């Protein structure tokens, strides 16, 4: 069973995001880049399936040279090989273009399963998974919290409004991971040493037979509105406090 995991590198969720001078991009100077947390679930699941079924786990990422570090992290967790698509033409690629590029890189690897995160924590579009499935002509299983691999098929679970949807598809298939799928392992220190020696192949768009990536232009970025100061509810007794709180929630916050 060969498994491919697509990895995006994103700003660490603890990073304070600032908009750059052009008003269209974010300032990248102080950003710490990490593997998209949802992709980590994909890597972990792939490694667990590999342990049970054998085969190879290959991680694929697209972006600038720094993405190597996230691919190495996946190799350190236990993946066997990595492919980095690095090309100036990638700059500003939109989700559809990214899916097309990933599809071109993934197809020759003939995977049985392709994992990716259900969304990336930076632009939150959640489009690459379904688009990739389309380009690869594989069933798309989104927002998955449980995976069971059968003979030539896979059964997954997706939480929907307190219920669980059980889906079955034939393999190969594309599965996008949701939080709760598993608890990703750490890249152990011995794993990091081993990862240094694992193959990491770099490809350009031309290598994949593609031209410059298409892009939807970002017109402008604006920061979320500054949070207003909190309000202190006053009152003499517990009853009075509760009454004033309820009043404020109903009349000012309009939430009840």
């Amino acid at each position: 069973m060969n498994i491919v995991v697509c990895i995006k590198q994103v700003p660490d969720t603890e990073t304070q995001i600032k908009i750059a001078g052009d008003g269209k991009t974010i300032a990248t100077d102080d950003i710490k880049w990490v593997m998209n947390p949802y992709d980590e679930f994909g890597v972990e699941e792939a490694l667990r399936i590999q342990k049970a079924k054998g085969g190879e786990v290959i991680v694929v990422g697209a972006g600038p040279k720094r993405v190597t570090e996230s691919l190495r992290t996946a190799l350190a967790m236990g993946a066997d090989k990595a492919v980095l698509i690095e090309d100036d033409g990638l700059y500003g690629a939109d989700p559809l273009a990214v899916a097309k590029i990933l599809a071109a890189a993934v197809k020759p690897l003939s995977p049985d399963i392709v994992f990716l995160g259900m969304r990336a924590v930076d632009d939150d579009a959640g489009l690459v998974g379904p688009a990739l499935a389309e380009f690869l002509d594989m069933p798309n299983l989104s927002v998955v919290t449980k995976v069971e691999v059968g003979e030539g098929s896979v059964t997954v679970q997706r939480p929907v409004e307190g219920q669980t949807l059980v889906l079955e598809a034939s393999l190969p298939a594309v599965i996008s991971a949701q939080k709760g799928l598993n608890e990703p392992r750490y890249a152990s220190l011995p794993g990091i040493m081993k990862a240094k020696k694992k193959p990491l192949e770099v490809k350009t768009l031309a290598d994949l037979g593609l031209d410059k990536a298409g892009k939807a232009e970002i017109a402008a970025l604006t920061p979320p509105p500054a949070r207003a100061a909190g309000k202190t509810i006053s009152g003499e007794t517990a009853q009075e406090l509760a009454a004033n709180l309820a009043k404020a929630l109903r009349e000012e916050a309009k939430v009840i």
Partner: protein
Amino acid sequence: MDFTIPENYRLMAETVRRFVKQDLDPISRQVEDEDHIPEEIVEKMRELGLFGLSIPEEFGGLGLGTLGECLVYEEMSKTNACFRTRIGTNNGIGSQGIVLDGTPEQKDYYLPKLASGEWVACFALSEPEAGSDAANVQTTAELKGDEWVLGGRKHFITNGDVADMACVFCLTDKSKRAKGGITAFIVEKTDPGYFVGTIERKMGMRGSHTCELIFDNCRIPKDRVIGGDKMIGQGFKTAMKTLDKGRLTMGASALGSAQKLLDLSVDYAKQRVQFGKPIAQFQAIQFKLAEMATNIYAARQMLYHAAALRDSKGTSIIKEASMVKLFCTEMANRVADEAVQIFGGMGYMKDFPVERYYRDLRLTRIYEGTSEIQKIVIARELLRG
């Protein structure tokens, strides 16, 4: 000058940062109260490879350079200090005698066990009469037939209670002492006549135990001299080489804790409101933060430079290592003192971690060579020849 940190070291520091945040910090208070690290956490440390940082790859360790090891310690020290102490003796003083001077057989037998964390090692040099004057050890060893017989008492031995083996420094020739009269031995937990004595009550470092070790007619096989027969009488050199390496990692530990205290202080100063504004708006507090940050920056450059120097030279750097230990530990103690001040009364309360760092950091100026001893070493190097 190239200041880039190799990718694998950055990744390791990141793993440790996450481990600290997800697994260690949440229980650091519990560990403090119970004076004990849960076994499942020790197991996670083993899985992460934290016990074998400095042990060569051929013996199952990671064979990290000094810089890599320092980066790991820096991150490990941004939480309760007992966690780094738990891995500290295997990576540092407990194993290095064998790494540096052990026979091939000793390396094959002991190092893989220490690298995996299956065994814990401790370093037993200090005695009631031999502190800074380490050559004044009174514990003796005498060769009787096929066995060495050890007699005496070591004290203040970190991880002595959990150790499976100890590197023990004994007097084998009273007339020679440091100049050919001290020998390093490996003593195993199960050796007859070896006992763990008092577990000390300390100012801090709860979760890590410091013990007395007693050798009462303790008999060990002849081949337990570190480095074999040719090293009989050469143990003091082994001890000094071992301690020399630890000075940089000790500096890194102090630095990590200082950085954590600065981060906590900045957050607190922005939140704590007095006289109608956050205390971070008072210049008196700003100046404290500015000085803390500047000292930390200086300490970090010094540490990384010394570590890179040691890695490129491949030999010990006696003067610089002592300078790093001296500067980083004294600096971190000043930072801790100012952090308590910025936190005010909260800095004195056990509900915040600041007072714990204050107590734990105090030790770094004392063990593995006091600040005064570091100055003696630096001056001796300066005035040499």
